[in-house]
């Protein structure tokens, strides 16, 4: 039965050929040749009808078996080839993953904004709300109501830019605020008789020759708490909390006597120098300490000017420059970089 032999030869040949087909194209050609419409197996299947009746079932069955076998072999081979081809493609698609990415230009928040936000967040945790006051101030708010009358030597602590006035009386002179403290009076007058817990950020101005350490414009942050039982130890605790959150958890602070006309008693709060850790270095002038804030208990005259009776109310206030901590933290050599807006500087933050 030559046709059976032939069938087996085709099977053998087909399997040999399949092993030789190593690309998708060769595989397709193989499929055409053996399993396609005019393929060897298909053609053999068609010859079943020409066979003697008694041979037909056996032959037909065999053809089908071989076909199934070849299809299985084909599928397995196809899987192998496609896998190999994918591997090859992936290999050729390799790139230098260290090449610079397509540029996206990021923006940067000004260093002062970042510092202020940090301060807002820390004092916000302690219940302090941000309260803003004007840059151009009345002399009365910047000085007199803060217990600093005209010609008083305490005024020497602030070199002042005065606004050119046209005709108004001397009691209404205006200036660029030399500190954020006038906001204390504004907050108190607005909020009285509520208790108060506010921070007052803002641009301040001083008639000062501009150098690497001094600017005529800078930011300050003031804090004010007024209540029926606010104390000096509360003040110390609040600033110590702040110092630990801002400068690091292990900071120790020290409090020493000082003078401000609008606080009594007045203190200054220092923390260990962040650069030398208290050993002494040029930044801390070899004292081991850096000034954190000037502070004190709100002077009774100021409380009264704000509308609060000092017999029953008390308060504390503190204030400090916003740029200084950043300058120390980042070793910023020149304060003029802040508002001269050198982008090479600002983009570093």
């Amino acid at each position, binding site marked *: 039965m030559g046709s059976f032999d032939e069938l087996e030869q085709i099977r053998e040949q087909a399997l040999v050929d399949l092993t030789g087909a190593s690309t998708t194209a060769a595989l397709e050609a193989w499929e055409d040749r053996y399993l396609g419409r005019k393929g060897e197996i298909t053609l053999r299947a068609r010859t079943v009808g020409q066979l003697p009746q008694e041979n037909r079932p056996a032959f037909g069955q065999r053809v089908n078996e071989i076909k199934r076998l070849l299809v299985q072999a084909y599928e397995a081979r196809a899987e192998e080839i496609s896998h190999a081809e994918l591997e090859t493609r992936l290999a050729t698609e390799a790139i230098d993953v260290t*090449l610079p990415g397509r*540029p996206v*230009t990021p*923006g940067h*928040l000004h260093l002062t*904004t970042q510092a202020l*936000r940090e301060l807002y967040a820390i004092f916000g945790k*302690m219940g302090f*709300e941000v*309260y*803003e006051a004007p*840059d*151009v101030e*009345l002399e009365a708010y910047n000085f007199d109501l803060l217990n600093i009358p005209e*010609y*008083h*030597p305490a005024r020497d*602590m602030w070199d*002042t830019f005065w606004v*050119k006035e046209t005709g108004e009386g001397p009691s209404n002179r*205006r200036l*660029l605020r030399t500190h954020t403290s006038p906001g204390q009076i504004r907050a108190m007058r607005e909020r009285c008789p*509520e*208790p108060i*817990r506010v921070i007052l950020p803002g641009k301040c101005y001083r008639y000062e*020759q501009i150098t690497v350490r001094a600017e005529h414009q800078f930011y300050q942050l003031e804090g004010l708490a007024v*209540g*029926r*039982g606010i*104390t*000096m*130890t*509360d003040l*110390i605790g*609040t600033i110590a*909390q702040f110092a630990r959150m801002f400068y690091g958890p292990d900071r120790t602070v*020290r*409090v*020493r*006597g*000082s*003078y401000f*006309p609008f606080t*009594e*008693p*007045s*203190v200054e709060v220092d923390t260990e120098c962040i650069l030398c850790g208290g050993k002494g270095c040029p930044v801390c002038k070899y*004292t081991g300490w850096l000034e954190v804030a000037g502070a004190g*208990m709100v*002077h*009774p005259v100021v409380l009264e000017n704000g509308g609060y009776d*000092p017999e029953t109310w*008390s308060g504390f206030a503190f204030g400090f420059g916003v740029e200084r901590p950043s300058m120390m933290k980042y070793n910023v050599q020149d304060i003029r970089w*802040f*508002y001269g*807006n*050198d*982008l090479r500087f*600002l*983009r570093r933050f």
Partner: protein
Amino acid sequence: MKIPLSWLNDYVEVADLDIGELRQRLDLAGLEVGSIEAIGYPGAELPWDPERVMTAAVLAVRPHPNADRLVLVEVDYGGAEHEIAVTGAPSLYARKGQTDLNLKVAFAWEGAELYDGHAEGFIKARLKKTQIRGEPSRAMVCSEKELGLSEASGDIIYLPDDTPVGVPLVKILGDYVIDFEIKGPFGHLQSVFGIARELSALYGRPLKRDPLATAEALGLRVVSQGDAFEGTGFVDLAIADAKLCSRYTATMIRNVEIKPSPLWMQMRLQRVGVRPINNIVDITNYVMMELGQPLHAFDYAEVRPRPGTAQPTIVVRPAAAGEQMATLDGELRTFDDQMLLITDGQGAVGVAGVMGGLDSEIGDDTRDVLLEAANFNFLNIRRTGQKLKLTTEASTRFGKRVDPELTLPAAARAAELMRDLANATIDPVVLDLYPGKPEKRTIVYDPALANRLLGMEIPRAEQMRILRALAFDVADTGTEWTVTVPSYRLDVGLPVDLVEEVARVWGYDRFPETLIDEELPPLRRNHALEAEEHLRDLLVGLGLDEVISYSLIDPQEEGRLQSEPGVPLSLPGACVVLQNPLAPERSLMRRTLLSGALRTAWANLRYLDRVAIFEIGRIHYHVSAPDAATGETGVAEPRHLSMLMTGVRNPTWWQGGAATAEKLDYFDLKGVVDALLERLGLTAKVQWARPAVGQCHPSFHPGRCALVSVGDRALGVLGELHPRVREAYDLPEQPVLALEWDLEALLEAADLADAEKRIGWLSPHAPVHEDLALVVDEALPAVTVKRTIENAGRPLVTEVVLFDVYRGEQAGPGKKSLAFALSYQAPDRSLSDRDIEKLRGRIIKTVEKELGAKLRGG
């Protein structure tokens, strides 16, 4: 204010204290120490080796066998044998041949480090064993320069005759000069004695010397009535206004011998920063530093009587307006009628409390000295100093309030020193007019106040101890005490001032930390600030760098922003101008943020090829009269927003190709703004207007500028800078895109948009996309066409995106074709062809009718 520790030690024992511990104590008590300069001690510029630099006595001076200009000195340095040293010191050379000497000197052994006395400047050198002209030399007698005490190198330094021999020099001349930076107007801390008094209280150590008793010790007779003294005195004295001059004490010192003051005094004065002049002037300065009372010495011969009388006269009176006098510094000064003068019988001889007159200055031929110790009103002195722009040691001290009780003790102390150091005689009668003697000041003090304010208990007994140590007289009258304030504590007037005294001496280092333990104030959000910060985040996210520029600007900036000289910027209100600017370029408050943005661009383009920045900040302008009663400043300070972009669009990139050369243009800034408006929910609410001819913002390109508003509220301008303005700011020839908006208006609009925002539905069905090209008039803004389509297609048109603008033959002259990609979508179903056809028909009909648009190819 510099004070040598050795001087303090005259008044209170401090020499045994560790200098670091002392500093800490002073700092904590509010006597802030700026720095401490060591002299001779470890830590000094030139520490003196205690083993090698010591005191010694020169016993004999012999000729040098081989050198005419040198001598050999025999020195007793306390060792077993005397040492022979070689020197050329002129004062020793002059004693060549003398052998019975006992001159105390500073003596240095080989190995000691000293300054080279012959070199320029201060060069350190180690003393070596050598030979000088054949004579062995291993030690030397030192000059001030060699020890680093001064620049004087001409001769050696001599120590007082009673100086022991063989003692480390540092024990005799070593010192620490403490530079105090005491904040606040504290007259009582402006002197050696004042600080000593504080140290006495801080350490609980008694004062060694009471300078207030000097007058008694000298046996001076104080006469306080001018007329009781008629005919026997040296001067007639009168005070015109006791409020301006509360006390005037005149002392007469006769037959003074003008010469340099002794080394110890010169050295102390140098250490506090005063240049020695002669003994009389030095003594007035010395006593001022020591006690805090400014003194003035007149040459008595130059104090003139009134016409027709014999006795010289001193009258303290306000100047006549326009009155003139030459002050000691040689300046001719003109006074107003509030300035206080010291006058003699014929005119001004001094500006009270500020500076003496030139004519009555102490000179080498002065024989008799009239010594003034007076007290003047501190505010008046400060005013005079400020008006005359004249600040002196005296005016600074008076300006911080001086205790009027000090005049007599200070005069007596100075007289005593003049007697001792100028061989003078003190006139036994002192004239002392004291019309402004202040009342005793008492404070009713409840020690419980300290506990209430401090938050901790300081026992009553401790409070009392502290107050008494500070010389407050405390009468324990029950719950409340009556506290009498020492005359010199002019800073203390309220009970709370006593709390501070108690607290600072008790020591803040002993205070515990607490946190506020009471009701919270009503909590409020600061919405304005939150919105501002949100906007900052958005803009940074859009790739812009934040800047903060100067509020004070050059008055020429506003002009520089004009493209046509005759067309001013329309800025609000009137400018806030400074009366005393630092410099003209920082003399007025900005009314626009644009100049700051342009300055920043200019400054940065020197280093960078791309600037994309924004600023959020206040502008300032006058709106009304100020009113201190209400707190109204009369100046509006609205927040503005500016943006600026210029330079290359795409940073250099390895696949950048030609795109790297592209410059930012109008649509880059517009894109940022579009994105910003989208985030603020304002995309559909903003009106974009192209300014009519002549209505453009003068800083901008008239054809590339948009006026933006929401509702009836203007936001501001956005566009490309006018080429002339760009040139005025010296910016390169490339588009400079800028924006300035009213931030308050923008944030209010965003708030409202947020309040009105309603979401409704999100469709689960796939949208249908369709393109629509419309031919319209060239002048018709694209945004109008887009919004007309959106309105006509509402609610099923969910997106309208312009994807092409075509001008040319097919559109026709004066026309343009705008191609939009539309998305159709319904909430509840897939749209059918019929739906879409209907929708398209409605849109086309509307744009034809409202805008005269034609469907291209339709």
